[in-house]
C-alpha cells in the first residue's frame, strides 16, 4: 500500500525508543509556495528574496525582541535529554533531527552565531553556524516535521516549547518568501472567502439543505441547520471540514440535533464559516487577527448572544487563548456565558441539566475510545474546572454509549500523542511523515482494540479526523473507526421525545 516503510505495531502499550537512523527524513519537505499570490495575500514576499540571510536575521531580531519566551527557550536548554524520545515523529522515523532538542538546535545555532558574543567570535566552540542555504533547507524540512503538538514541552524541566520555536521559524521563512503551499494557500482562502475550503455561501446552504433532508429521512423529525439567521442566540463557528468531509459532517449533524432538542436558537455564518485559523501554524498574529476578525464581525452583524466553537483543535486554542486579545473585547455578547464556549462544554451542560434524551444502547454496536487532540489537551482548557478538557468530552461519550475504555496512560490527557497531521502537515506531500508519526497513537489503539474490542476512535478535531481516516488503513484498521464525539451524541439522541 505504501512506497515507504510503515512501522510495525508490537505487543507494548507505548512504542519503544527507536534505533537512530540519521538523516532518515532529510529529504522530505512539503511543497513550497510556487504561485507568488499565495504569499503576497498574507503580506509575505512572493518568492525567496535575494538578501534572504539578512532579512531572516533581522526578522529573528524582531521576534527575539517581541517574544521574551523565544529567547528564554533558546538560552535555557541544558541538553538533559528528557525530550528526546517524546516526539511522535522521532518515535516513528528514528531520525535524530526529529528529537525536539535537535529541532530547537536548528534555530539555536543561528541564534548563537548572530546574537551571542561566544557565537560571534568562537562559533565552533558553541555550535554556532552561519545561516547558509543548506541550513535554510534543513529548517524548511525539519520545521515542517513538527506538528506543534507540544508533547515534548510537557517533559521539559524548563518548559521549553518547541511549538513556539517552530512557529517562529516558519514566521522567519515566510518573511523571506519561503512559504509552505498547503498552509498559506488555505489561510489565504480563509481570509478572502471565510473558510479554508473556499466554500461560497450557496455551496454551504446546499450542503445544509442536504443534511436537513437526511436527518428527516433518518429520524422523521425536521431539524433545521440555519445559516446567516439574524437574532439567533448562538453563533456556531466550526471547521469548514464539517461541511465537506467524512466523518466530520456527522458531527455537524450531532450539533444540530443538540440545538434542536435543547430548543436553543442558533445559526452558522457564511461570512465566518471557519473555526480553523492556520495563521497559528506560521506564527503570524497579523493574519490570525484578519481571519478571526471575520468571526467577531459576523457575531456583531447577526446580533448573537454567545459564540460556540465546534470540534476543532487549534480553532479552540486560538479561540480560548487568543481571541480576547486579538478580536476582543466581547462586551456585545451576553456575559452570562463563557466566551468562547466549546461545543462539548455546551452539550455537557445540557446533559447535566437533563435537557437531552440520550439512549446509550443506540451505540451498543460501538466500543469507544477517546483521542485527546493536542491543542485542546495541552494548549487550552474547557469548562470551569481544571482538566475539563479531559473530563468533558469523556463525560459526553459515557452519556452517549455503554462501552468506553481509555487508551494506555502516558498516551492520553496531557501526554496524548499527536495524530501525526497537525500544525499544517495535513497534506499529501507529507504522507510518509504522517503515517510514521501516527505510529504511537496507532500502537495504543491496537492495544485497546485487542484487549477490549474497541472499534470507534472518537476525536474532537477536524485535522485528527482527516488524518486518521487516511492513516488507519496503513495500520490495518478500518477507515471508518474514526468519528467525532458529537457523532456519538447524534446516534444516541432521541429526537421528538423532549423538545
Amino acid at each position, binding site marked *: 500500500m505504501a512506497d515507504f516503510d510503515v512501522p510495525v505495531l508490537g505487543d507494548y502499550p507505548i512504542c519503544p525508543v527507536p534505533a537512530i537512523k540519521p538523516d532518515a527524513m532529510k529529504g522530505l519537505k512539503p*511543497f513550497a509556495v*510556487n504561485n507568488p499570490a499565495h504569499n503576497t495575500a498574507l503580506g509575505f514576499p512572493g518568492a525567496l528574496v535575494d538578501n534572504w540571510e539578512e532579512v531572516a536575521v533581522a526578522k529573528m531580531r524582531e521576534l527575539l525582541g517581541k517574544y521574551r519566551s523565544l529567547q528564554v527557550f533558546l538560552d535555557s536548554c541544558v541538553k538533559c535529554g528528557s525530550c528526546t524520545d517524546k516526539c511522535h515523529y522521532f518515535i516513528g522515523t528514528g531520525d535524530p533531527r526529529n528529537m525536539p532538542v535537535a529541532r530547537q538546535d536548528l534555530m539555536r545555532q543561528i541564534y548563537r552565531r548572530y546574537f551571542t558574543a561566544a557565537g560571534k567570535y568562537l562559533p565552533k566552540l558553541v555550535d554556532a553556524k552561519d545561516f547558509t542555504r543548506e541550513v535554510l533547507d534543513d529548517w524548511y524540512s525539519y520545521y515542517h516535521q513538527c506538528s506543534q503538538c507540544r508533547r515534548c514541552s510537557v517533559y521539559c524541566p524548563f518548559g521549553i516549547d518547541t511549538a513556539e520555536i517552530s512557529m517562529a521559524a516558519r514566521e522567519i521563512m515566510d518573511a523571506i518568501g519561503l512559504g509552505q*503551499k*498547503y498552509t498559506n*494557500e*488555505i489561510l489565504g*482562502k480563509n481570509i478572502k472567502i471565510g*473558510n*479554508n*475550503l*473556499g*466554500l*461560497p455561501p*450557496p*455551496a454551504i446552504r*446546499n*450542503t445544509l439543505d*442536504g*443534511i436537513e433532508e*437526511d436527518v428527516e429521512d433518518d429520524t422523521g423529525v425536521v431539524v433545521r441547520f440555519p445559516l446567516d439567521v439574524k437574532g439567533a442566540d448562538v453563533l456556531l463557528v466550526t*471547521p*469548514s*471540514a464539517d*461541511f*465537506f*468531509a*467524512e466523518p*466530520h*459532517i456527522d458531527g455537524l449533524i450531532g450539533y444540530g440535533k443538540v440545538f434542536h432538542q435543547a430548543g436553543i436558537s442558533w445559526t452558522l455564518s457564511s461570512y465566518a464559516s471557519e473555526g*480553523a485559523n492556520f495563521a497559528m501554524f506560521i506564527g503570524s498574529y497579523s493574519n490570525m487577527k484578519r481571519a478571526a476578525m471575520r468571526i467577531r464581525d459576523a457575531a456583531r452583524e447577526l446580533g448573537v448572544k454567545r459564540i460556540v466553537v465546534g470540534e*476543532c483543535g487549534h480553532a479552540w486554542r486560538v479561540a480560548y487563548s487568543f481571541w480576547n486579545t486579538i478580536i476582543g473585547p466581547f462586551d456585545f455578547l451576553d456575559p452570562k456565558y463563557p466566551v468562547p464556549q466549546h461545543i462539548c462544554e455546551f452539550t455537557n451542560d445540557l446533559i447535566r441539566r437533563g435537557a437531552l434524551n440520550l439512549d446509550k444502547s443506540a451505540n451498543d454496536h460501538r466500543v469507544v475510545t477517546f483521542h485527546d487532540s493536542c491543542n485542546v489537551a495541552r494548549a487550552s482548557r474547557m469548562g470551569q474546572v481544571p482538566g475539563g478538557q479531559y473530563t468533558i468530552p469523556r463525560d459526553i461519550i459515557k452519556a452517549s454509549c455503554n462501552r468506553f475504555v481509555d487508551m494506555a496512560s502516558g498516551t492520553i490527557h496531557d501526554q496524548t500523542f499527536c495524530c501525526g497531521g497537525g500544525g499544517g502537515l*495535513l*497534506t*499529501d*506531500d507529507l504522507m510518509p511523515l504522517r503515517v510514521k508519526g501516527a505510529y504511537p497513537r496507532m500502537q495504543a489503539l491496537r492495544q485497546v482494540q485487542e484487549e477490549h474490542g474497541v472499534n470507534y476512535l472518537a476525536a474532537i478535531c*477536524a*485535522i485528527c479526523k*482527516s488524518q486518521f481516516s*487516511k492513516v488507519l488503513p496503513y495500520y490495518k484498521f478500518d*477507515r471508518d473507526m474514526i468519528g467525532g464525539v458529537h457523532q456519538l451524541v447524534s446516534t444516541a439522541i432521541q429526537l421528538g421525545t423532549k423538545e
Partner: protein
Amino acid sequence: MATIEVNGKSVEVDEEGYLINLGEWNEAIAERFAGDDNTQLTPNHWEVITFLREYYNDYQIAPAVRVLTKAIGKKLGPEKGNSKYLYELFPYGPAKQACRYAGLPKPTGCI
C-alpha cells in the same frame, strides 16, 4: 509548472498534477490522468466525474462527499451511494482523485 502532452496539445498542471487552467479540460485529459494512475475509466467513474463538473459549474467548488455519495446513490443505485464504493472507484480518495480527473482544483483544508 509542469506540462503534459495530451493529443498533441500541451497542458499545464501544478506540482500535484491538477490542471492550472480549468477551461482546458476535456475527456482525453481525464483518461490521461487516470492512465497515469493505472486506472481504466468505466461508465461509473464517468458518472462521478460528470456530477463533479456539473456541481462545480453551479457552485464554484467541489461537492461535499455526502452530497456526492447521495447523488451517485440516486444515479447508480443505493448500494453504491456510500463512500466505501467511491473509495473503490477512486482509491486515493473520492474528493481529491476524482476532482483531479474532472479538472477541478484540489479541495484543500482540514480534509
